[in-house]
């Protein structure tokens, strides 16, 4: 497994997912402290299972959590590490040093737009276990997750690493072309291997545990045949660019062809030298046409040639040095084993005795061989079977195979043996020839009983039982006991060192001792199978590329562990048993008369049905159709690797103890625990805040104060030049033709100077396109039709990650002016699958109308800021007040703690002090003060009090109302809607007034007072983290010439965001405290003289929208 560099993070470590964790993360990042959030769950927003069982679970709670999610998840201080685990936690100079690992992430959450195109193209999307899924509904990102398990056993078993699972999945989906492309990617000879491969994949197939292995080879053959029947000539893309370096390949058998193909594909100029008159090596010379029709062989070799490989037949290479001298940069020797082994018994030179390879070569290449009426084949391997069946076809009356092995150990594939028997081949087993006898020609073969005797060194030897001798009448013998390389015959042994069996000696990189000369296939390994030879050829090609370029071998033969996370899923018990189909064969008595193909292959329906039997062990089959779907977005990478990380954490917060490597960690200092979600969500959230508050003390040094950007007031009086951008959501929104019509329609609306389609608005490249067009066409108003529904800097319950991201790209990264953007959510309305083009255009036209109206009524959205300090006043002692004060003190705040003896609710009276605040450096204790008045706003509160009969006045940036008795001084508890406001955001401490906090009585019933104090401190630190208080972009503006000072706006605002101040001529006028404002516009609706108006939903705009909506298409009729 290759891994990236270890990431080093300095942050508070948060372990586990869930609502409590979310609250922790929110409090910390919003207070300016970086958080590394590690959870084993696949998505950091996935919540603990079973949470729905909570008694007070409001049906729309998921929605209510959205703003919180979105605030946290795209926060720059959050390092999200989902699907990750802590491996160890040791001590460091400043707290803990935590080592961990994150599983590979196959879909990049920063790029994925959630368009879902990948799922549409995934062949397994409709299966019971789709590999690409969206996270649960409560998750406000639409991002997708790819489930990729350990590599399938079939693929691992294949020497070439052909992705059988993928082509089975595609075949099952009827996508034969793509399936064949998957095969060809790793195996350029699918039609050949579909016939003659010994299919180790099937041997490993897990389906055999249930019934029978999937007929993978037959499906491969079907795919190649399907293409051929369709009249398609197979072809490979020629290499994109040629590289310097010519490579010579000696031998055009499976190893040579494969090596040549892959070298060519990598851009090298390859010449293959073949001594025989036709290319194919053993494929042609050794394998008969009734097993491998010449047509198949020819077209697959031709495909390799057509892609640029030169095959020079009839050329025997006698010197590799000569080739190197000729200008080849490297030579691959893949000459195979063309020489037959001999028995070395008497009579072996009698006429009528043939060697197997030369016999088959004569038949297959020259059509010159002849056999006798009584033919005996010596040996029981696959070549022997070929020889025996060929002899039958050449007219032998009887063919007998003599083999040493017993039936169960025959080296030939059982299928070959069976087919030979069916055709009439007789077998004499457990015997070996000892002599050939005959006068002028062969007459009989003398045999005796024999067996293999293994030696301790691993070799084996034949033991003959001379007592039990018999003879077989024969006029023809074919000796098929094995082959060897024939380097000697062509003189290459002079240059290339050879070993046992005349094989070329190579190292693990297929290199011979001669520089630039490599060897692969049977010539180096001794006789093997087609697919093994091909694999060796490809691997050698990889070595040659490394040798020539220094690049890493580009060919992929994964092991089980190379990719994926986790093991195969269990085989479902509900799986129905089903046998594999028998591929049809011609009748033995018919087929043995000719050289036509024996096997007829599967039909399309059979192939699909058979492919469906595949268990899809890796879940994701890695066909990579999704990558093609995501080409423009680039979010999918099947080859991601695990990420190692180290976190220097001053504190650890544990939201889920089961995710810890060691439960003992919980007992250590600076490790805080968030309550489990058992009873009440509020408990968990409160507990999260308390943990965050306590961690802040340890992590105070990591805090980074954020300075909000202050925006200039945009002058929107310039010419209205509208640019229209339509996000096609990676071509998933609707048909291209429909969207082009919408684009053209918009292009004709009054004021529109530019109209274009975008691949994606939430993707960085999409945002770049907008910025570029805005500059090029001097666009002054942008109408962006996507899924984004407002250009504002806030998140609501219908917002999601993509919308947030689009805004971050446009307004934060690229700095485009919000005021000039109208964003309209078309996606949610146009997604319907069955909409015709006309319906799409009509619907879009209808939805876009309002946007073009708005583009003409834009008002500046401005952002101001007010500086605030760190002076906090805590009104009310007791352990909550003390704990809060102490915590804030340790975080660097300056605190005035006012103990009020007149209070009956002061917890101080109920229990002894547990919190010792004497340690605080910056706490000013005020004893026995009676608070008289609290007024002002965040950053500028004034508290009037009396102490010992004297009037006192204190200034504070932030006020904490810890005891009930002072509440009425600061808050009108009966203000409209106030009680409701406590329902959401889990704002146990928030009041409608920014910078003023209170402790709800119910808090005390839930957590210890010490914890409540810490949680309160966390909220204070959060609100003070940005040294500046930001305005709300939607805040209304007051026209002081219009305002009558009637105070209706003041009456309706529960946020203290509006007040009457002296204005014109002794009258009063409304003034908006823009940072208290939440932008609801209630005051605007109440103003009898429209003296208040909002920049985004102005009165004028709303009226224009109503007028336009009721006027039926005025916007488009006005088109110029």
């Amino acid at each position, binding site marked *: 497994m290759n891994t990236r560099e270890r990431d080093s993070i300095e942050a508070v470590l948060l372990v586990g997912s869930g609502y409590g964790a979310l609250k922790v993360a929110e409090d910390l990042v919003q207070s300016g402290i970086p958080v590394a959030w590690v959870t084993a769950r696949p998505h950091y927003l996935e919540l603990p299972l079973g949470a729905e069982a909570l008694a007070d679970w409001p049906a*729309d709670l998921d929605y209510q959590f959205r703003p919180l999610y979105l605030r946290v998840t795209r926060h720059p201080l959050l390092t999200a590490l989902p699907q990750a685990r802590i491996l160890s936690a040791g001590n460091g100079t400043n707290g803990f040093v935590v080592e961990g690992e994150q599983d590979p992430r196959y879909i990049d959450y920063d790029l994925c737009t959630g368009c879902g195109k990948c799922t549409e193209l995934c062949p397994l999307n409709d299966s019971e276990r789709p590999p690409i899924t969206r996270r649960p509904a409560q998750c406000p990102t639409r991002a997708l997750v790819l489930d990729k398990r350990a590599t399938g056993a079939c693929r691992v078993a294949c020497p070439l690493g052909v992705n059988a699972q993928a082509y089975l999945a595609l075949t099952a989906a009827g996508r034969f072309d793509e399936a064949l492309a998957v095969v060809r990617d790793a195996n350029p000879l699918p039609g050949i291997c579909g016939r003659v491969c010994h299919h180790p994949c099937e041997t490993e197939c897990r389906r055999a545990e249930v019934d029978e292995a999937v007929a993978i080879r037959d499906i491969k053959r079907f795919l190649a045949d399907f293409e051929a029947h369709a009249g398609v000539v197979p072809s490979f893309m020629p290499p994109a660019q040629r590289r310097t370096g010519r490579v010579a390949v000696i031998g055009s058998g499976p190893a040579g062809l494969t090596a040549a193909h892959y070298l060519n594909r990598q851009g090298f100029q390859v010449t293959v030298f073949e001594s025989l008159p036709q290319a194919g090596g053993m494929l042609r010379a050794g394998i008969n046409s009734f097993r491998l029709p010449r047509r198949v062989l020819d077209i697959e070799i031709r495909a390799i040639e057509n892609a640029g490989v030169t095959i020079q037949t009839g050329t025997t290479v006698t010197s590799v040095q000569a080739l190197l001298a000729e200008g080849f940069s490297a030579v691959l020797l893949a000459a195979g084993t063309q020489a037959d082994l001999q028995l070395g018994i008497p009579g072996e030179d009698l006429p009528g005795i043939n060697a197997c390879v030369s016999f088959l070569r004569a038949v297959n290449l020259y059509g010159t061989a002849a056999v006798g009426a009584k033919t005996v084949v010596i040996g029981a391997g696959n070549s022997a079977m070929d020889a025996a069946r060929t002899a039958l076809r050449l007219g032998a009356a009887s063919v007998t195979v003599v083999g040493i092995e017993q039936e169960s150990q025959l080296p030939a594939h059982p299928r070959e043996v069976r087919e030979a028997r069916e055709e009439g081949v007789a077998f004499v087993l457990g015997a070996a020839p000892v002599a050939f006898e005959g006068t002028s020609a062969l007459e009989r073969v003398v045999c005796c009983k024999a067996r293999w005797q293994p030696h301790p060194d691993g070799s084996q030897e034949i033991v003959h039982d001379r007592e039990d001798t018999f003879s077989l009448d024969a006029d023809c013998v074919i000796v098929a006991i094995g082959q060897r390389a024939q380097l000697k015959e062509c003189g290459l042994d002079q240059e290339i060192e050879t070993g046992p069996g005349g094989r070329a000696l190579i190292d693990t990189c297929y290199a011979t001792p001669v520089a630039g000369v490599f060897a692969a296939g049977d010539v180096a390994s001794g006789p093997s199978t087609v697919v093994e030879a091909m694999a060796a050829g490809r691997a050698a090609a990889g070595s040659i590329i490394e040798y020539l370029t220094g690049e890493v071998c580009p060919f992929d033969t994964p092991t089980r562990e190379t990719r994926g996370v986790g093991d195969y899923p269990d085989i479902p018990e509900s799986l129905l048993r089903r046998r594999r189909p028998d591929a049809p064969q011609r009748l033995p008595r018919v087929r043995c008369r000719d050289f036509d193909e024996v096997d007829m292959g599967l039909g399309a329906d059979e192939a699909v049905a058979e492919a469906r039997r595949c268990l899809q062990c890796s879940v994701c089959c890695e066909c990579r159709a999704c990558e093609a779907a995501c080409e423009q977005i680039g979010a999918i990478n099947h080859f991601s690797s695990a990420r190692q990380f180290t976190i220097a954490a001053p504190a650890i917060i544990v939201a889920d103890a089961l995710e810890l490597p060691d439960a003992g960690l919980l007992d250590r200092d600076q490790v805080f625990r968030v309550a489990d979600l058992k009873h009440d969500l509020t408990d968990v959230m409160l507990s999260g805040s308390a943990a965050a508050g306590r961690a802040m003390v340890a992590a105070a040094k990591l805090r980074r104060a954020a300075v909000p950007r202050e925006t200039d007031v945009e002058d929107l009086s310039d010419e209205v030049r509208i640019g229209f951008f339509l996000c096609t959501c990676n071509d998933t929104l609707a048909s291209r033709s429909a969207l082009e019509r919408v684009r053209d329609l918009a292009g004709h609306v009054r004021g529109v100077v530019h109209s274009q389609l975008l691949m994606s608005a939430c993707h960085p490249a999409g945002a770049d396109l907008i910025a570029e067009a805005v500059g090029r066409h001097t666009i002054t108003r942008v109408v962006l039709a996507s899924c984004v529904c407002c250009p504002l800097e806030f998140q609501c319950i219908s917002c999601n990650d993509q919308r947030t991201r689009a805004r971050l790209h446009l307004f934060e990264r690229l700095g485009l002016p919000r005021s000039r953007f109208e964003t309209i959510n078309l996606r949610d309305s146009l997604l319907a699958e069955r909409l015709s083009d006309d319906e799409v255009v009509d619907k879009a036209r209808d939805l876009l109308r309002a946007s073009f109206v708005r583009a003409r009524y834009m008002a500046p959205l401005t952002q101001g800021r007010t500086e605030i300090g760190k002076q906090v006043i805590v009104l009310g002692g007791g352990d909550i007040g003390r704990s809060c004060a102490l915590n804030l003190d340790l975080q660097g705040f300056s605190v005035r703690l006012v103990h009020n003896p007149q209070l009956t609710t002061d917890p101080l009276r109920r229990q002894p002090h547990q919190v010792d605040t004497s340690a605080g450096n910056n706490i000013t204790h005020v004893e026995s003060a009676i608070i008289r008045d609290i007024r002002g706003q965040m950053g500028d509160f004034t508290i009037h009090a009396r102490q010992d009969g004297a009037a006192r006045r204190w200034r504070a940036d932030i006020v904490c109302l810890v005891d009930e008795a002072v509440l009425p001084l600061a808050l009108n508890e009966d203000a409209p809607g106030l009680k409701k*406001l406590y*329902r*959401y955001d889990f704002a146990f401490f928030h009041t409608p007034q920014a910078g003023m906090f209170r402790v709800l009585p119910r808090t005390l019933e839930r957590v210890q007072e010490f914890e409540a104090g810490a949680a309160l401190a966390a909220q204070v630190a959060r609100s003070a983290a940005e040294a500046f208080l930001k305005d709300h972009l939607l805040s209304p503006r007051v026209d002081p010439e219009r305002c009558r000072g009637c105070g209706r706006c003041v009456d*309706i605002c529960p946020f203290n965001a509006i007040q009457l101040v002296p204005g014109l001529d002794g009258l009063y006028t409304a003034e908006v405290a823009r940072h208290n404002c939440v932008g609801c516009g209630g005051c605007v609706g109440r103003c009898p003289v429209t003296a208040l108006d909002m920049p985004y939903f102005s009165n004028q705009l*709303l009226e224009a929208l109503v007028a336009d909506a009721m006027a039926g298409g005025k916007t488009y009729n006005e088109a110029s």
Partner: protein
Amino acid sequence: MKRPNLLGICCNWSPWTCLNAAGRTNLELPPDLRIIRVMCIGRINQALILKAFEYGADGVILLECRDEDCRYGPGPEVGHANVTLVRSLLDLLGIDQQRLVERSFEAHEKDRMVTELWNFAERIEAMGANPAKPRQEREAV
């Protein structure tokens, strides 16, 4: 016959979420309905509702949060008050009060919203045209 003109005024919070979800899940909305969004139903005043009728709406529906769900506190109550007042005015004008309705939703109630919108559309269609003719039609006469 002329299709009815229906206006929906939708709060940005729960009801807008319902609408988004309805769109995502291919739920069909009444074709004659136009929807405009506001931050809170408390944002709109009586004038806007009256103008909708003046501009030719045959029915207006306010889509709002439940009283206890308002993010800002008083929104739905303001909505109720506005509806009561405008309905009284409509009644004086001889315009059926049922042409103005308000419905509240939680964020997950997309199906109920779609049902309510269809009910609304069907009821208004059954009522026929609003007797107060929009200006362009009056001009045509």
